[in-house]
C-alpha cells in the first residue's frame, strides 16, 4: 500500500473506532476538562470530585472508626 492509502485507511479505522466507542462507557475520565451538566460552576473540573473525595475520606475515616469502636465497647 502507498503511504497515502495507509493514512486514509488509518483515518477510516480511527473514525470507525471513535464512532462505535462514542457512547460506550469505560473511557478514562478526562480530569482536567470542565464538568458536564448544569449543576457545575463554570470553573469546576471533573477531577475536582476525586480530590474532594480523598479529602473527605481523610476527614471522615478516623471519626467513623473511632465512633464504631466506641459503640462496640458499650
Amino acid at each position, binding site marked *: 500500500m502507498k503511504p497515502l492509502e495507509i493514512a486514509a485507511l488509518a483515518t477510516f479505522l480511527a473514525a470507525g473506532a471513535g464512532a462505535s*466507542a*462514542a*457512547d*460506550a*462507557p*469505560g*473511557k*478514562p*475520565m*478526562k480530569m482536567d476538562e470542565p*464538568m*458536564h*451538566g*448544569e*449543576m*457545575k*460552576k463554570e470553573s*469546576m473540573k*471533573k477531577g475536582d*470530585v*476525586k480530590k*474532594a*473525595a480523598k479529602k*473527605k*475520606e481523610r476527614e*471522615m475515616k478516623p*471519626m*467513623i*472508626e473511632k*465512633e*464504631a469502636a466506641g*459503640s462496640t465497647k458499650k
Partner: protein
Amino acid sequence: MKKRTMETSLAGHSPGLVRSIERRLFLKQGLSLGALALLSGCDPTDDEGVQSLLKGMSRWNDRAQGWLFNPNKLAPEYPESAITKPFPFNAFYSEEEVTLVDGKDYKLELEGLIREKKPWTLPELYGLPQTSQITRHICVEGWSAIGKWSGVRFSDFLARVGADTSAKYIGFTCADDYYTSIDMATALHPQTLLTFRFADQVLPPKYGFPMKLRIPTKLGFKNPKHIMSMFVSNEFPGGYWEDQGYNWFSGS
C-alpha cells in the same frame, strides 16, 4: 395632568422651580431603579457576609425539611406506560466516561455503626427479597423523568446488617468518586430502595451498575450510583455537591 396638579399645589412659584422639582423626583425614581438593576446585575452572592447568610438559611432549610418529612407519605407511583424513554443520563462527566465496575469482584463495604460489617457480593445482594417501583426522578436542575427500579428495601437491608438506626446519617462512596449522605428517616422510608435493576434489566453502567440507591423522596443527586461502600454515623458526612452549596436535605 401631572403638570396641572403640580402647578396647582405650587401656585405662585415659578415654572422653573416646578420643573426642577419634577426633574428631581424623576431622578430619584431613576436612581432607585438603577439600584435595583445593580443588585441583579452585579452579583452580591460572592460577598462573605451574604455567603454565610445564605449557608445559614440552607441549614435552616435542612431542619425545616426534616420536620416536614412524613415517613409514611409515599411518592406517587405510575403505570408502565408513563415511563420516560429514553431515560436521561446525567452526571458530572460524559456518558462515554461512565465508570465500569467489575461485577465478579464487586463487594459492598460496610463501615461505621453497623454490627455485621461483612462485605456483600452481588449474588448475595441479588438473593435478598426484591421489590419494584415506578416513580418520578426529579433533578435539582428542574427536569424530571419516570423510571422503573427494582431492588431490596433499604430499611430491610439495614435491619439485616444490624445498622444502628438511631444514628443520624448514612454516607455513600461511589466508584466514580462521587459521595453523598442522607438522613436516617429517609433511609428507613418504605420507598427507599437499594436497586440492582432498571427497566427490568440489570442496572446498566450509565444508570449506576452495580447498585444505585433510589430515593423517590429526594432530588436526583441524592440518589448515589455505583455505590462501593456505605457507613452509618452521627458525624455529618456532607457530600460532593452539598459541600459546594447545594442544599443537603434536598427532599421532594
